[in-house]
C-alpha cells in the first residue's frame, strides 16, 4: 500500500517538526550558552539506502547519535546525530568547559544521553501536543558507527524499504559543532499520520482555504 501525502499535509508535517525542533534548540541553547543555528527542514520519502546516503554525504568520519523510539498512533524514531569527532566538544560545551579531558570522557555517555533526551523529547512532545495524541518515548540510546547503523535498527521495519526521512541541520558556530536532527517514520504509520495531519490542519487553519499556490 502506498500512501502519498498531499502538498498541504507535507507542509503541515514539515511545519510541525520545524516548530518541535526550534523549541528543542532553544533548550539546547540554554544548556550550551551559545546560539544554536538551524537549517530549514527537509522532508523526503526515500528508501533506507537513500536516507543512509544523505546522512553519509558530508561525513567521511563515523557518526555518533542519540536515538529514541516513539510509539502511538504513529511510530518511528528520532535521532540526534553528529560526527563522532564533535561528541566530546558538545559535552564540553554543555558542562561549561572547566572539566579536565578525563572527566569529560567519563561523562560523555551520560551527557550525550541527557542532551539527546532534552532535544528529542522536547521535539516529540511538541509534536504530540500539536497532534493532540500521546506518544510513548523510549529511553535514549547512544549509537556509534557508519551512517548505515542508524537506519538498520531493531525492530526491523515490517513494511518494505521506504521511510519518511525528515532532517534539520544544526550548528553551534563558536564551538564548531554541527549535526542533524532526523526523524524516520515507517510507511504503515503514514496512513495514520495522514489522518492526524488532517485533524491538525483543520484545527490550525480550519475554514481557511489556501489563498494562493505559492510554496
Amino acid at each position, binding site marked *: 500500500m502506498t500512501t502519498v501525502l498531499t502538498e498541504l499535509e507535507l507542509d503541515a508535517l514539515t511545519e510541525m517538526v520545524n*516548530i518541535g525542533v526550534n*523549541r528543542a534548540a532553544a533548550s539546547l*541553547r540554554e544548556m550550551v550558552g551559545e546560539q544554536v543555528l538551524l537549517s530549514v527542514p527537509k522532508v523526503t520519502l526515500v528508501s533506507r539506502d537513500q536516507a543512509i546516503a544523505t546522512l553519509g554525504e558530508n561525513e567521511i568520519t563515523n557518526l555518533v547519535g542519540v536515538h529514541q523510539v516513539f510509539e502511538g498512533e504513529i511510530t518511528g524514531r528520532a535521532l540526534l546525530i553528529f560526527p563522532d569527532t564533535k561528541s566530546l566538544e558538545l559535552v564540553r560545551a554543555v558542562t561549561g568547559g572547566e572539566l579536565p579531558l578525563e572527566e569529560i570522557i567519563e561523562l560523555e555517555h551520560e551527557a550525550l544521553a541527557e542532551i539527546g533526551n532534552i532535544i528529542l523529547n522536547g521535539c516529540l512532545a*511538541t509534536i504530540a501536543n500539536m497532534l493532540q495524541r500521546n506518544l510513548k518515548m523510549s529511553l535514549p540510546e547512544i549509537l556509534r558507527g557508519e551512517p548505515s547503523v542508524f537506519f538498520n535498527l531493531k525492530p526491523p521495519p515490517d513494511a518494505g524499504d521506504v521511510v519518511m526521512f525528515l532532517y534539520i541541520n544544526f550548528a553551534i558556530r563558536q564551538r564548531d559543532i554541527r549535526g542533524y536532527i532526523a526523524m524516520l517514520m515507517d510507511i504503515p504509520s503514514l496512513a495514520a499520520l495522514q489522518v492526524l495531519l488532517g485533524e491538525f490542519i483543520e484545527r490550525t487553519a480550519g475554514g481557511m482555504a489556501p*489563498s494562493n499556490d505559492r510554496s
Partner: protein
Amino acid sequence: MKYRILVVDDSKLARMAVAKALSALHPDWVRLEAANADEALALARTDSFDLAILDFNMPGRDGLQLAAELLALKPTLPLAVISANHQVEVVTRAREVGATFLQKPLTEKAMGDFLADAAKRLATAAP
C-alpha cells in the same frame, strides 16, 4: 480602520494559521501573502500594505534580514517576526530591528496584542 497586512512564511499552513487568527480578529483587513523574502520585496515594490508578519526560519534570507530590508523601504512599518525559535539571540535581534517577536504556534491572543499595538501606531502616524 481597515488595514492591509503582509504575511510571509514558506509554510502554507503557517500562512493559513495567520489567516485564521486574522479573520477572527479583523475579518475586514486585507491579507497579502508571500512565501519568501524575494516575493515579499517584490510585493513591497508593487503593492501597498500597512503592517507585516514574517516567519523567521525561511529558505534564502531569514525573516530578520527581510524585516531590515522592509524597514529600509518603510521605516514606520509595524512588524512582527514569528518563530518557534525563542532563543535569546533571535528574540534580541528581533527587538533590535524593531520587530515584535511572536511565538509559533501562533495564538489568537498574541496576534491580537500585536495587531492592536500596530493599529494604534498606524492611527497616531496617520495625518
